[in-house]
């Protein structure tokens, strides 16, 4: 584009907040504050770069992106780093395409970058997708004039169990250290030494500081009890401990940081890449799954500016090997009546036996469905429809965790149907919120991308973060947040007391755009949802529910709950039932009319012998409020059909086991916590790997019922035909549980507990590198509590109930007096199974000197 002088007056006006500049002779209108390198990208001019990353603060360290800049008709004396200089009115930029100076500067920097680089591309993981390789070919000399001695280092050096460092390949762009420092807030990796000896590294171990933050002191060994806290550290280096460490592998522009799990597994050009969505938590990360010869080799963060930007957590990145576990079911199994053992069978036989058993139950005591919280919307819909028309019951509940009637009321009235489009809270809202209050929710552990966005909001926009919790967790520190300390179970009172006792918090929440976040733990705190409603009514803040599992939000909308049909239609509403009956082609009056049982109700009924059959989809009894009661229910009920991937406690008691496909072998969509649809396609086609919706559809056919859910697409279409999600039902008068909170006696404390991101979860199996980066399982106590109980920090402590006991090392934390914190399902600590306790329970505690 050329502009003749006489046309100047006809130039398009520059919009407010924008400037007009020229890049390589082309006129560009750019928003003020935009970096030259981005403005150039927009007109298709790619300036080579290494340290630049759009989500990191400019560093201008690598000097690869130098361009010539002219201001007010005067050229700047030196070439400028286009990654750090912002656009200005009338600026003239000449990149390597039009400036010999810029081109020479870039060639010079490239040559310098390569003098100490080993040029071992043929054996490097990055070879083929390496910015250094690509840019060296595009902007570098054909040969090097360097004939002297290259710098060498020992390599690779593990900086954590899953990240390996090759310092020779490193170009010291500092993307990794800046990511750790700016994005994740886990600065366990930094530059060491100086000059040509400068290198990325981890610091010397400081076990006390490390443990105080809840980080793992050792990547290879667990806790060994032989004295004080100082004995906990193993080795003299502090590993790079971060839930987000895998991102540094992805953003490394050379092969310096490689993945222990992926190293030497494949070349980029041998991989097939497919977009995917993470199945672990409700953050809803876009991902890219790379596979080769039918086997997933690695997963990378996908780019979705509205959701995960360009990041994903280590669980999402590395925890995919469960899908290829040796013990994965490939064939249906039925229990042999004579031997009592499960034996492989044909699909025809298994489906017939399952259908017969379920039909018998339907005629008799009835059947119920526990679909679990990890399903796609389409699969959850198939379960919901299966329950209603094949089993003729509303006894279905996706909540495979402690839950309450209050929670169901809250979900039906407040969460159902909310999406970013219709005013629901979104990631963007978190980023711009003046204040965010989190209650019964631990962002870094339960929804890591939400945590990253909260940190970004605090760092970039000054968002104030408040957390009502038992103690200051790393998430509070890293969001520069404020802990509103409260005993487990006292969250309701804390929320109700905010306006009176913390007027500054209430005032901050009164500002437009303020957000309140609540997590799954709220279900065990009586009255909390009602208190939150009062709080948002008083302050005007928006309220969002962030479940821990990827499928919970979708299951709610799909009707996998006892009170709602698909699309949020109340089961007790005759016209809603009639709508669904018409749409499903059923005779009027054929849908069950009464409210169904929730998970607790189903388990209790089954344990009491009042249920004829259970259909269980991927539920681990250990996740249920009372695992032993669940075991009893499974063994008492007449007939159990299990749709599963791998053996579980349910398998032991199932009469029919129907294998289903893991996430990577199925398609569908999740609704993330925002209510945003996260669609994904099949990554790996494998014959015989069927999604739940297909298995249920076929099973229903055996029962003479048509679900029309043969494929995820069919199920989605069937659900869409029901029309939009019904208007949320009004907030019911939430009834407070009148049971007084238990009071601890002598030698007793209250239990605070939640799950850690990396724990004993069954989807994290077979990935030792990932497992080694889990935070150490430790109990936490306040100093005065420990002193009063005669407990020494660093020594083991035994927490028990009449059902069992858990022994863990104990460390100090700023907990309220008389409270112990335990990880819910980490290492030896399985709070549900062993203690049959939950957040807010009273437990016994004592020093355990026997194991010292």
């Amino acid at each position, binding site marked *: 584009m050329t502009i003749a002088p006489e046309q100047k007056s006809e130039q398009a006006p520059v919009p407010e907040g924008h400037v007009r500049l020229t890049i390589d002779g082309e006129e560009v209108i750019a928003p003020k504050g935009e970096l030259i390198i981005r403005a150039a990208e927009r007109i298709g001019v790619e300036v080579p770069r290494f340290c630049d990353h759009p989500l990191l603060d400019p560093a201008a360290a690598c*000097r690869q992106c130098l361009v010539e800049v002219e201001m007010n008709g005067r050229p700047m004396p030196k070439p400028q780093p286009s990654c750090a200089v912002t656009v200005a009115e009338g600026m003239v930029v000449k990149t390597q395409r039009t400036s010999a100076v810029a081109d020479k500067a870039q060639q010079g920097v490239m040559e*310098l970058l390569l003098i100490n680089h080993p040029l071992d591309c043929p054996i490097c993981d990055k070879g083929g997708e390496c910015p250094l390789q690509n840019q060296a070919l595009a902007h570098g000399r054909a040969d090097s004039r360097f*004939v002297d001695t290259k710098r060498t280092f020992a390599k690779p050096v593990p900086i954590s169990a899953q990240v390996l460092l090759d310092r020779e390949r490193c170009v010291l762009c500092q993307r990794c250290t800046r990511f750790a420092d700016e994005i994740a807030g886990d600065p366990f990796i930094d530059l060491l*030494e100086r*000059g040509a000896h400068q290198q990325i590294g981890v610091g010397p171990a400081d076990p006390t500081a490390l443990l105080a933050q809840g980080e793992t002191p050792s990547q290879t060994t667990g806790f060994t009890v032989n004295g004080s806290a100082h004995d906990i550290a193993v080795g003299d280096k502090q590993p790079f401990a971060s839930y987000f460490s895998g991102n540094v592998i992805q953003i490394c522009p050379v092969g310096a940081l490689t993945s222990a799990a992926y190293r030497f597994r494949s070349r980029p050009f041998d991989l097939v890449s497919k977009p995917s969505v993470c199945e672990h938590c409700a953050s809803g990360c876009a991902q890219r799954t790379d596979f080769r010869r039918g086997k997933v080799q690695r997963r990378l963060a996908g780019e979705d500016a509205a959701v995960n930007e360009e990041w994903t957590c280590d669980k999402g990145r590395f925890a995919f090997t469960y899908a290829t576990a040796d013990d994965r079911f490939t064939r249906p199994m039925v229990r042999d009546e004579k031997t009592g053992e499960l034996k492989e069978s044909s699909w025809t036989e298994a489906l017939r036996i399952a259908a017969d058993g379920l039909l018998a139950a339907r005629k008799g005591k009835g059947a119920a469905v526990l679909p679990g919280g990890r399903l796609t919307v389409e699969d959850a819909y198939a379960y919901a429809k299966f329950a209603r028309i094949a089993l003729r019951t509303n006894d279905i509940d996706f909540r495979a965790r402690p839950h309450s009637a209050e929670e169901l009321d809250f979900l039906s009235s407040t969460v159902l149907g909310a999406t970013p489009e219709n005013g629901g809270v979104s990631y963007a809202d978190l980023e711009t919120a003046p204040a965010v209050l989190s209650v019964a929710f631990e962002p870094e552990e339960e929804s890591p991308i939400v945590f990253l966005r909260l940190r970004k909001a605090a760092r970039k926009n000054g968002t104030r973060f408040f957390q009502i919790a038992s103690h200051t967790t790393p998430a509070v520190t890293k969001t520069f947040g404020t802990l509103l300390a409260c005993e487990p179970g006292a969250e309701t009172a804390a929320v109700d007391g905010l306006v009176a006792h913390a007027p500054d918090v209430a005032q901050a929440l009164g500002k437009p755009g303020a957000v309140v976040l609540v997590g799954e733990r709220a279900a065990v705190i009586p009255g909390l949802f009602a208190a939150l409603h009062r709080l948002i009514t008083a302050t005007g803040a928006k309220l969002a529910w962030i479940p821990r599992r990827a499928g919970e939000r979708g299951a709610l909308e799909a009707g996998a709950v006892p009170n709602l049909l698909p699309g949020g239609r109340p089961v007790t509403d005759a016209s809603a039932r009639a709508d669904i009956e018409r749409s499903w082609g059923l005779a009027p009056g054929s849908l069950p009319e009464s409210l169904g049982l929730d998970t607790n109700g189903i388990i209790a009924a089954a344990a009491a012998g009042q249920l004829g059959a259970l259909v269980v989809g991927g539920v681990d009894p250990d996740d249920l409020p009372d695992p032993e009661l669940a075991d009893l229910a499974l063994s008492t009920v007449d007939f159990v059909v299990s749709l599963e991937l791998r053996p579980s406690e349910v398998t032991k008691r199932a009469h029919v086991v129907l294998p289903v496909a893991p996430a990577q072998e199925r398609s569908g969509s999740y609704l993330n916590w925002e209510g945003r649809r996260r669609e994904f396609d099949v990554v790996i086609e494998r014959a015989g790997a069927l999604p739940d919706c297909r298995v249920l559809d076929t099973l229903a056919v055996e029962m003479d019922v048509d679900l029309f859910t043969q494929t995820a697409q069919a199920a989605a279409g069937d659900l869409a035909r029901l029309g939009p999600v019904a208007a949320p039902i009004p907030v019911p008068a939430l009834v407070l549980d009148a049971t007084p909170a238990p009071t601890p006696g002598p030698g007793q404390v209250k239990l605070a507990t939640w799950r850690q991101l990396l724990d004993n979860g069954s989807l994290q199996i077979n990935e030792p590198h990932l497992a080694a980066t889990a935070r150490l399982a430790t109990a936490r106590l306040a100093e005065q509590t420990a002193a009063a109980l005669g407990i020494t920090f660093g020594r083991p402590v035994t927490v028990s109930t009449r059902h069992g006991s858990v022994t863990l090392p104990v460390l100090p934390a700023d907990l309220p007096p008389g409270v112990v914190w335990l990880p819910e399902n980490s290492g030896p600590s399985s709070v549900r199974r062993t203690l049959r306790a939950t957040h807010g329970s009273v437990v016994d505690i004592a020093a355990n000197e026997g194991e010292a």
Partner: protein
Amino acid sequence: MTVDPLTPVLTKRWLSPRSWRLSTYEQLEGYTALRKALAGTPEQLVNVVKDAGLRGRGGAGFPAGVKWSFMPPNEDKPHYLVINADEGEPGTCKDIPLMMADPHSLIEGCVIAAYAMRSHHCFIYVRGEALHCLRRLTMAVREAKEAGYVGKDILGSGYDLEITVHAGAGAYICGEETALLDSLEGLRGQPRLKPPFPAAAGLYAAPTTVNNVETIASVPFIVNAGSDWFRQMGRDKSPGPKIYSISGHVEQPGQYEAPMGTTLRELLELCGGMKDGIPLKFWTPGGSSTPMFTTEHLDVPLDFEGAVEAGSILGTTAVMVFNETVSVPWAVMKWTQFYEHESCGKCTPCREGTYWLAQILERMVAGNGTASDIDTLLDVCDNIFGRSFCALGDGAVSPIQSGIKYFKDEFLALCKDNAARNERRELAGAH
């Protein structure tokens, strides 16, 4: 009133007995300027320093009064004055002697400058190796505090100032003002991206001015005697006295105070001429980062303009004098090894470039160089100069570029012995 060009100002107390004690200082007009300054307004002080034309003595020569005026007038955030006493430029030896001999002139200057910039906390970042100097300065600050010149309600004016003496850990880069600030904050000493400039977001992201020791030590004299007096010394654009630190092959190396614009010929007279009469070969006007001069430049006026016109820069007025016994490639190699050692590693050109340059020079000095190495040296220098993050890279190539400019024959002579090998470079270009 005319001033004898060689009347000492900055160094006038240096030879007094126990010149570093407060009592000596007080007897010799000490802290009189402070009383005068506190009676005026900060704006008046900034104007006096502007009018005097005092330029930064750390090397860049930025007008001190203008720099002070960049500090925001409000005090929404604390203001900081940071004194760069990390004297590390090779050959430079003026700030440490000043702090040793007359620490109170720096302290008095700090109080005046801090008052002018509405700062209540001043940090003096001293080179960590200069332990004796650190002790003496710390002692002087304590004395000044006990006497009420520093601390709360200074001399009853209601003005408070705390002075903290901080020891660096011995990195050349920490003399770069933003690296110094990072180091002072306890971070890794590496230069910061600008903008924001220190006056907007410096130490702890608060408005900060970083000044050199000699600059600040000049301030009390200006306050006492006025800007016109100051302008009588030196030259129009570079007025005032200057401490030239002369080292190398001269009869009496040391610190010589003379007005700005003094020539090497005059300085050599002051220090007794070339040692043992061996003729001059080359010299630096202001440390190793300033391009070297030769005998052609004996009459170049050593002020900011004069040095630039002659193809170098004034730097820290660290005059290093080398006689004919010194090999230029060897000296250049030694300097380059210094820059390789001190490169902070942040940016590619300086980190990798100095590593490469040092190896080439070492190879040449060892007799294994080739004529093409000289071209490579110059081209690598060109790829570093103006491409590095901070001025360290620019300084690192100065000795090489100027050395080859004036003494290319010496470099070529080194390669001659190697000429035979030069013919068979089958490995050239191998990676």
